[in-house]
């Protein structure tokens, strides 16, 4: 007796496509994955679509338009499990910088005819609109972690994606601490693990692609950064990157606004 393969859908909202590309970047595993699940909806990769209910939906991107705010409700209704992938879907992405500005002014800067543009004043994560079963962090997500999520799904278990800081990954990798040794500003102590501590391994400070770890002590890190000589404006900007709308980073940045 053959068990029916789970039906997978991949959806895109406001994003750069990099997180769904991570699935296609699993060159060694892609055909095995395609054998284990039925890729029922993935327009970036195939024009064949299966309509109806999906066992799992991977959702990339943030909600930035009235149309997308309605579309995510439909995606939720049609998905048994909904997994958000990447900083746009889990925290609103870099485009959430608009949340601090006047979106009408932004539209006028980029478009000659702002009246043609339909957009919301904010870029918000999927979980602010519908219930989400699992969030995979990263800008972009790590493809090994994506494979872990898919493997866990097939085994009916919870994915293992540790919520400790990048510091732990740095130690595991044997990196010398860039902040202690070179005084390089680094968000590693408060940033969610998952990338493998790439930046410190390349002699630069972490810039927070994976967003806040569980229980981050952001004020303490700000103090340390200020002691390294970072001025208030730079500090506020440092917290306002690809996860600027994630609460711990958002609140900490706000403390350094004039």
């Amino acid at each position, binding site marked *: 007796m053959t068990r029916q393969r789970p039906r997978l859908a991949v959806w895109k909202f*406001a*994003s750069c*496509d990099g997180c769904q590309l991570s699935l296609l970047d699993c060159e060694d595993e892609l055909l095995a994955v395609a054998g284990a699940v039925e890729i029922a909806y993935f327009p970036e990769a195939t024009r064949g679509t299966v309509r109806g209910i999906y066992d799992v939906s991977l959702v990339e991107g943030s909600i930035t338009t009235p149309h997308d705010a309605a579309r995510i409700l439909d995606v939720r209704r049609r998905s048994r499990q909904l997994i958000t992938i990447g900083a746009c879907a889990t925290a609103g992405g870099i485009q959430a910088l608009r949340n601090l*500005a006047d979106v009408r002014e932004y539209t006028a800067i980029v478009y000659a005819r702002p009246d043609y543009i339909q957009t919301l004043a904010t870029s918000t994560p999927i979980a602010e609109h519908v219930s989400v079963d699992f969030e995979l962090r990263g800008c972009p997500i790590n493809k090994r972690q994506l494979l872990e999520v898919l493997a866990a799904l097939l085994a009916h278990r919870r994915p293992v994606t540790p919520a400790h800081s990048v510091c732990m990954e740095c130690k595991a990798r044997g990196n010398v601490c860039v902040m202690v040794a070179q005084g390089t500003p680094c968000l590693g102590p408060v940033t969610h693990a998952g990338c493998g501590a790439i930046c410190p391994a390349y002699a630069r400070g972490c810039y927070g692609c994976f967003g806040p770890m569980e229980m981050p002590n952001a004020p303490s890190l700000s103090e340390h950064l200020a002691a390294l000589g970072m001025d208030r404006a730079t500090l506020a900007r440092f917290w306002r990157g690809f996860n600027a709308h994630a609460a711990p980073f958002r609140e900490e940045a706000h403390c350094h606004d004039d």
Partner: protein
Amino acid sequence: MTTKTIKVNYLARVEGEGGLRVVVRNGVVTKAELSIFEPPRFFEAFLRGRAFSEAPDITARICGICPVAYQMSAVHAMEDALGVRVTGALRALRRLLYCGEWIESHALHIYLLHAPDFLGYAGAVDMAREHRALVETGLGLKQAGNAILTLLGGREVHPINVRVGGFYRMPSRRELAPLAERLERAREAALATVRWAAGLDFPERRHDYHFVALRHAAEYPFNEGRIVSSRGLDLSPAEFEDSFEEDHVERSTALHAHLKADGSSYLVGPLARYSLNFDRLSPLAQAAAREAGLGATCANPFQSIVVRAVEVLYACDEALRIIAAYEEPDHPSIPLTPRAGIGHAATEAPRGLLYHRYRLTEDGAIAEARIVPPTSQNQASIEADLKNFVGGWLDLPEEELRHRCEQTVRNYDPCISCSTHFLRLELDRG
């Protein structure tokens, strides 16, 4: 007069979201419109007030398929504004990184997105059931490109090692050695790809394109060169906005670029690059192109799959040349001093010319940013192709006609997230 409407709600196998509307009156195509519904993300607006040094990481996020292109145009434009030039081994490493992105992005398009059109499958996974070895070759080639990005950039998508002035960390000769072995195998696979692609069945469709690409004194263009065209334009990147402009049309969140002088369309990307720079390809790539039956120029957009394969071959060849000649520089980057100024740059993204301009304040903050991606420049040409080609296909069965229209768009490998910006086909027969 018959009344008929064909609609493709979501054009698949393109990166991003767009739609297509073709209007036919009495057997003649009167209108072909490409719309892009990608939600606007306002990069040029939120770049204002950020430090010049943040531009490569932020603009990379415009496109997950070609982040290196954004990083390269950003760093060159910033260096132009700051009055410095990156030369020698650091410049060569930037070309190496770009080779990685071309190999990865082109292999993705050739094998996973474009090949299914020629072989009659919905996508690569379906194609793999009967053509497993072919798909595996494509994935292997793509992986070789990603190996360059991972080693030199730190990861495949949104590399972390690029900075204005150079890199954070430079690789040692020893680290590059295993990469060379892998690239030698990739070069064989690329040569096989050119031969395979040459044997595909191409519709005989040509168009008298106005090709626009970079041209460099000695190299096939990645990072630097003058902006030249098949109709005699020859500009520095700083003069880009004198000759080209973008319009905002109601149906699209992407801007449409055209020539300022007469509002005409132009073409950027592999066909333009190839046709304007055939003599700059390596001897191996030139010979493979000739063997594939290509001339020194190519104006059949369906053959872009062959041209991309030739460019992959070139990129493997060039990457191997760079690795063989590599000597570790003394420093991973050059020193920079913030100053007020304006900087321009154009580099060759896999999909074509990518223009950036920044105005900086005295303390190095971005006061203004302007980004013109390749897909917004090619929209007018995509529409012209549809208008020119669809007329000959109107007697085809509905599904096949729709498929041909989609293929006409996919010829361009449109990166719609880039143009900030998905595809729906609506065929209105009056």
